[in-house]
């Protein structure tokens, strides 16, 4: 069951990298960055998953012996990572807007004043 998660995560990361390498539209590059992020988040959450575990929340009276949680730390990591990913995407999109204003294009092949 977890294998599907890992395959999905890696697929997302690879698709993200593919978008960043092969797509010349800078918005698509940003989308690629986002995809990589999601893949990563999925990977981390999957790492912390325990088959049959419950949510790592203490609720009164429900604790029975033999019951176990999924690992809460990766979830905390994922939360942080999602927030960071959202910030990065926002920043990148803001830069895209400014670049479009200046260069009149979103084609990365034409946004290369700095080279050599």
């Amino acid at each position, binding site marked *: 069951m977890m294998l599907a998660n890992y395959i999905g995560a890696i697929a997302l990361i690879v698709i993200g990298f593919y978008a960043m390498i092969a797509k010349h539209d800078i918005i698509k590059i940003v989308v690629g960055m986002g995809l990589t992020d999601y893949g990563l988040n999925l990977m981390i959450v999957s790492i912390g998953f325990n088959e049959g575990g419950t949510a790592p929340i203490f609720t009164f009276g429900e604790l029975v012996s033999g019951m176990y949680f999924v690992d809460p730390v990766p979830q905390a*990591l994922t939360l942080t990572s999602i927030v*960071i990913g959202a910030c990065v995407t926002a920043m990148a999109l803001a830069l895209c807007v400014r670049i479009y204003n200046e260069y009149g294009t979103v084609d990365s092949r034409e946004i290369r*004043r700095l080279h050599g």
Partner: protein
Amino acid sequence: MTYDVYMHFPVIAIMTLFVGAFLVTLVGKRQAARNAIAGAAVLVSLTLLALLIKPVMVDGEIIMYWMGNWEPVEGYAIGIAIEVDALSLFFGLLITIAVACSAFYSFQYIKQDDARGSFFTLYLMLSGGVLGIVLSGDLFNIYVMLEVMTFAAVGLTAFRTWNPNAREAAFKYLVVGSIGSTCALLGTALVYAQCHTLNLAQISAILPGELNPTTVLAFALLFTGFGCKSFMFPFHPIAADAHGAAPSSVSVLISGVFTKTGVYGIIRVCYFLFRSMGLSSVQIMLVVIGCISMFVCVTMALNQHDFKRLLAFHSISQIGYILTSLGLCTGLGIAGGLYHAINHTLFKGLLFLTAGSVLYATGTTYLENLGGLAKKMPKTTALFLIGAFSISGIPPFNGFYSKWIIYQATFEKAAETGSIGYALVTVVCVVTSVLTLASFIKVGHSVFFGQLRPELAEAKDPPLGMRIPMWILGGLCVFTGLFPNVMLDYIIIPATGAVFNAVPYIDTAMGEGYAAAHLASTSPFVTPNYTLLGGWDPLAWLVLFVVVLAAVFLCSLAGRSNRDVNCAPDSKHAVFFGGEEAQYSHISGGDLFWGFKHTMRRYLGFVSGAHTGVTNDYVLWGVTATAVIIAYCFAFML
């Protein structure tokens, strides 16, 4: 605990910067208040870290602080730790020094910019993030701080609204930097999957000794992640773009400080977490990457036409030195690498600040549009020369000493292992050093010397507020060059010792005896050996000074008899022009070193052409590098 008071210093040093960042936003439009807050914040954190020198460097204590007093429970460190050993403090010190100098420089420097309000917010965020990385004892916290730092750095790169290249540079930086962040986070997650802890000390106790495919993958990813942050070889083009586009005072941070966190991360990963430096494959990987970075970037720098872009390529070239030296895994190698790290921060900071002064005075850093500024900006020229001599390793300055150690370390390694490869590394280091000198001659000639461009006649030295931080950095360059023994005894050797011996670090965090219980061998994994260090005979220095003094005396004698020399712009004092009337005919930067460029034209053309400036290409380089490093690690580390 004997050092109860000191315990709180590191966390306060980090928090001051972050709190300062928010306060700066709160005070709004009041320039003076903003400056006061920023200045106070950087000074407080500098002072706090300086106070730690005594306990950490001299007495060998390790400062441990658990956030919220959440100490390890049953041998599992779940709380967030701040742990300062000599290595952390070493990097913390060089960071805070550069941050403080650059902040005071910025007060004047950004006066002409339009978005001044947010500058110090981002600036202090960046500083706080950087300091957080090196002082933190928690792998995920390092990642978060890495992101905070990257984010602030991207914001600052795009800061100059009037600079048309700034957004482009920032975008590339963000995209390619995200590869590094991805790798670092994935590596962190994999490490967590193996160890169920994120505490550096505990990981380094549990992890080594069982290099299974997951740990190798984690190692490769973390290495690439931090390598990306240090802008090592295939990640370097973004650094060049970002350094060039950012305001100079920020370039100081990106080049001198930001890259050092990458170096710090690589040390922590290679020497601590995985204790993998004993493997010759890892040593070779670091050395090869270092050499390629060093040589490729210095040749790129020779080709540049922009002062700051040239400096940017040199940053990576110097990072190459540091990585090479660290990859040797000998006492001398680490000492040389760390010494070069602090020297690089000092002289590169100085050089970026002089570049900023040139920009401030003339409005351009394009080499072809400058020339002859030495007459108009003598103080900046003197500072530039200090920086240029330091980076090229001219003897009395600091670069010489660290390069000397690096040459000795590489050649000693060659002799020790009997492998001629390391001897060739020494050769690459020396050739790079010469090319560095050449490119700074290029800058010196095309910016400060040669003929004064007519339209630069109004240029003048920057105001005192900008000069003082530059003099401080320049003074430190000279100091670290003249008194290497002080540096070695109090700063470098404790830090080197900390690199080699992880046991105290682990025991301080996890309780006495933890390392002994978990590590296969608790002995330091190489005994540091400084035999070849030799060092300058202080007497020789004294003597050198006497001779120099005598020469200066001679010089002044010669000068006095010609004090009445007329420097009038008549035809007698005009430049000899084959009899023609002197005209403006400056030999500009692009024309220099024709013989070299012509002979190497194929190589230079190839390298220059490879830096296409297209984001996708750079991402491709980065991803390829990641893949290659992973493949290499799987092939040779298992």
